[in-house]
């Protein structure tokens, strides 16, 4: 019997020849997304734009009721959502916060996020929170503590976890390795994914005088679940990760290099301050498509 064949290509099954979707992002390939932000709610509900996916800040929706959850439910009716957290603090020496985990699991069930991300950082001490993404001391003890907490969170939440490299402005004397060696140490011990933020690599490379391509080349490509791009602010003596500008060319070059290493990967533009129109943010995000490999044409029997 002859089968007529047709081409079936969509954002959700776009794959790269080099690196398929992996277990760290739930074997998905989501394409190019943007962060779900309040100033865009009206536009999204009125115009119902086609967006590959939205990233939400988990903590904004870990509430008991009201408008945040009503908005989220409306978004979930039409869009794919991935959760991104800012206060799990895998790197804090203290144990995970059980109330935080409980609320996060409730939200995971609501969104059905295929993977979940938070930062490779610390931010709380003795139950007191800085609400910042503080840089890790790159020590073996810190890697073990962090990896154990990532494993505990994954086991409780029952969803793949990827950790994001943060921008940093300080380094500790006690560090025993480079940041990228520490990242690899943690993800190997935890057997988790990486949310590779190429803007953060750029910012930290400028603040700490290292070669960002050396960092990128050291990252385990098979563990990259997602990529972040963003803009930043340059000051006289340092660069601040402000997410309030378009992505600069050197960061796109890093993105291009990352894609060449890891293949087509779910990519998200972060724009969190001085937020322009939805269309402007979306257009900036879609610049990433220039660097993504052409979709593989999947042959599907008619």
């Amino acid at each position: 019997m002859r089968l007529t064949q047709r081409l079936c290509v969509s954002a959700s099954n776009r794959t790269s020849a080099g690196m398929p979707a992996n277990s760290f992002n739930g074997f998905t390939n989501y394409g190019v997304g943007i962060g779900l932000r309040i100033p865009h709610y009206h536009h999204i509900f009125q115009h119902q734009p086609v967006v590959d996916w939205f990233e939400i800040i988990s903590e904004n929706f870990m509430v008991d009721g009201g408008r945040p959850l009503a908005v989220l439910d409306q978004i979930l009716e039409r869009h794919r959502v991935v959760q991104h957290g800012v206060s799990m603090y895998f790197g804090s020496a203290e144990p995970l916060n059980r109330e935080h985990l409980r609320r996060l699991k409730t939200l995971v069930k609501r969104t059905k996020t295929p993977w979940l991300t938070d930062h490779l950082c610390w931010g709380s001490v003795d139950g007191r929170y800085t609400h910042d993404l503080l840089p890790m001391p790159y020590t073996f003890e810190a890697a073990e503590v962090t990896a154990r907490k990532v494993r505990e969170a994954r086991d409780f939440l029952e969803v793949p976890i990827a950790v994001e490299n943060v921008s940093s402005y300080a380094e500790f004397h006690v560090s025993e390795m480079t940041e990228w060696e520490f990242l690899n140490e943690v993800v190997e011990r935890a057997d988790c994914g990486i949310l590779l933020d190429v803007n953060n690599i750029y910012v930290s490379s400028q603040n700490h005088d290292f070669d960002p391509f050396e960092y990128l080349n050291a990252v385990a490509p098979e563990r990259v679940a997602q990529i972040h791009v963003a803009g930043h602010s340059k000051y006289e003596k340092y660069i601040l990760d402000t997410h309030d500008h378009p992505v600069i060319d050197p960061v796109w070059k890093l993105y291009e290099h990352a894609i060449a290493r890891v293949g087509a990967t779910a990519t998200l533009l972060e724009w969190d301050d001085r937020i322009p129109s939805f269309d402007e943010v979306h257009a900036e995000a879609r610049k990433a498509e220039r660097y993504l490999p052409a979709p593989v044409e999947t042959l599907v029997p008619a």
Partner: protein
Amino acid sequence: MTLAELQKRTAAAIMAPLTASDEVAGTWRSEADALIKANSRLQPLERLEIYSRSYWFRVLDCLYDDFPGLSAALGRRAFNRLSRAYLTERPSQSFTLRNLGEGLEAWLRAHPQFAERHLELALDMVRLEWAHIEAYDGPARKPLGPEDLLELGPELRLSLQPHLTLLELKYPVDDLRIAVNQFVEEHDSASNAVAERDKHRTVRRYRRLKPQAIHLAVYRAEDSVWYRRLETDEYRLLDALRQGLPMGEAIEMMLRASAIAEQQLGGLVQEWYAGWARMGWLCAAGV
């Protein structure tokens, strides 16, 4: 140095109060040197300062966003002093900044000097603004409608929605909070200079707010927060229901301090219950 020790020392340095010019105090220099590397452009203290400023500006902005009425009642400078003192003594104890102000009322009662001559006004406003936060995203239970209340009897027990807060206040701070909200909305597009001038006028006007005892319900309906003034008797009855009393005992409690004539009682209670049901305030007890 262990991870725990490094984090305790670093957090202490970051969360220490900034100087009047928003710098890290020079007394932290040796600690910064001990913990943090210098680079070719920045000394350890300067690198620490990036984090310290970021921490303080974030939590101060958050407290201002949550308590704009308190800021209007006290004036921005006094509010700033209060905020820094509160956050120094009681840093965030929650993974979410939503809860940053949860200890503010108790703290202000223990530190009345930060409200200067406006303590009662400030306390009332703090209670209202915290109730506003609770109403915005607090839990809701299935409301009872008028059809669920056809047979009101003395043994009937009802609960109030968890997002609803009942407040007994000495000042009409709801008026001030609404005026502050309107001010923010109207001045979103105005120039900074115009906004600052108008804000000072608004602040001066409301700092002269006269005492007036009011009872208030702060609640959520259709995903918006509402304030509704209550009659004293209505407040007392709702407060008794919130305490879990059955309807008969709740009415008795209300009547102890009420001047309602007996012949008016039945109709008034029916009217109140119908109104509360329409607003979705009532839910089944004991869930």
